[in-house]
């Protein structure tokens, strides 16, 4: 709580968006990955970022907590300018949870220690308090019984849920998800998405880079479609995924939904489902 007291502009911040991105550019050498992104995420809002690979969506997410240093533009999180060179970036990152495609659990310590180590080293919580917070968050993701296991002993889905619990243990105001289910076997995707769904229901501010269109449609307040380093289209999920206005969005959705629609019947041949094909052509 002491962190809150410093924020005199907290009253102003409440009507400011939780994440504010202005004119963001990012280049890797000659590769101009982000070409002027403006985006706001309100408190409690769930925004899904979709787009073809190489469209810059992961880079956009990584610019929010400065894992990538933007080449130009500004990023604000909770009213603090992240891109300000004088800002204490470690302090800002404590308020931003991040979940990675590859989970990135610490393999040399147990599940519980994965959750307690950052609390103790970064937040200075004592052993008992950090353990209590860890257990509480493991319960949230349904893995309290794995507290003493090591990451390597868990399935991918379980590892990712632990990674979410680890981020939540720091008490973040915002959660960033960078393709959280892309490295998972298909049968493990559901358990991770349902944890995220609960989190969204609890009012967490979330920015999710994903290829899971059903998740985006169901959970996202807003869907942002990116291509070629710019935002091509954004709006309510039902509109962007269901009735895209832009040609590029339609092409992308056709590519991503049709193979799935065509592939699924090949597996359980007798029962072709109309649902997916219908939405694709929207």
């Amino acid at each position: 709580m002491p962190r809150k007291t410093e924020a005199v502009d907290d009253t102003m911040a409440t009507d400011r968006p939780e994440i504010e991105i202005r004119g963001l550019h990012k280049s890797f050498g000659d590769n101009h990955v982000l070409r002027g992104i403006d985006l706001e995420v309100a408190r409690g809002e769930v925004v899904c970022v979709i787009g073809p690979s190489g469209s810059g969506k992961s880079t956009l997410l990584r610019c929010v907590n400065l894992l990538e240093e933007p080449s130009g533009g500004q990023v604000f999180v909770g009213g603090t300018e992240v891109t300000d060179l004088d800002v204490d970036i470690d302090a800002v990152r404590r308020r931003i949870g991040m979940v990675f495609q590859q989970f990135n659990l610490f393999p040399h310590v147990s599940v519980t220690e994965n959750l307690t180590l950052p609390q103790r080293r970064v937040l200075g919580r004592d052993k008992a308090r950090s353990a209590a917070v860890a257990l509480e968050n493991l319960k949230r993701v349904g893995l309290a019984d794995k507290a003493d296991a090591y990451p390597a002993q868990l399935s991918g889905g379980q590892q990712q849920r632990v990674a979410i619990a680890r981020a939540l243990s720091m008490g973040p105001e915002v959660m960033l998800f960078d393709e959280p289910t892309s490295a998972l076997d298909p049968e493990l995707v559901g358990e991770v998405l349902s944890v995220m769904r609960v989190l969204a229901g609890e009012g967490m501010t979330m920015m999710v880079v994903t290829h899971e269109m059903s998740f985006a449609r169901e959970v996202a307040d807003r869907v942002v479609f990116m291509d070629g380093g710019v935002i091509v289209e954004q709006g309510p999920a039902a509109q962007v995924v269901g009735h895209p206005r832009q040609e590029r969005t339609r092409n992308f959705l056709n590519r991503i939904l049709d193979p799935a629609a065509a592939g699924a019947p090949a597996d359980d041949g007798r029962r072709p489902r109309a649902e997916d094909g219908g939405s694709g052509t929207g």
Partner: protein
Amino acid sequence: MTSRLTRRQRRRISQGIQYAVFVAVLVLIGVLADWDRLQNQFAQKDLALRLFPEIITTALRNTVIYTMSGFLLGLVLGLVIAMMRLSSVAPYRWVASVYIELFRGLPALLIFIFVGVAVPLAFPGTEIPGGTYGKVALGLGLVAAAYMAETIRAGIQAVPKGQMEAARSLGFSHARAMVSVIIPQAFRIVIPPLTNELVLLFKDSSLVLFLGVTLQERELTKFGRDLASQTANSTPILVAGLCYLLVTVPLSFVVRRLEARADKAV
């Protein structure tokens, strides 16, 4: 003509030849070598027994002390140089690279002599603390650090990039992430090669031979050689050698076990 042989026949012939060569060499050595003289010179039982317990309590003990102190110094210095090598400050990287190339490129013996001569010259009036022990630790440590720095650097770089990103995104500073997350994992990776380095150091400690040491400071090689010249018999050399093997063979075994375990873990 060979094409008419079956694979089984060919295998049998090939193995037969290899066994024959092996046996022939053994027989040749057994017949040609003068075993009596060898036994006289290297395997005098009562002479060997007289070496005990001093060869253990003084010589082996000193070898272990020299090795461990050199190893610990090398480990600390090696870690520092590895961090310098990975630093974003260019001069640090240069210094580290020069150090590594220099000390890996020079014979350890030269460095020993250098430490004995140059340090008192460079810092007049100062003695290397610990006398011979300090000198040996410094000499071995300087050499070991160069090798260990490269090993540790490779270990740190073998830790996936995502680990640092995860730690940073949780609010760890770069230094804290290194200490709490990266280095513990890197050490797991480098334990087998570092143990290997320990075996090498254990043998290199014999270079103390070339520094003047008192009777109480003698390690295995010096001890063996001194007693060999005193008794005009080489048995002490053989016993000293066996003492080395007593330590190095189990250590090598441990390295193999560690490597096998590391392979399994990845």
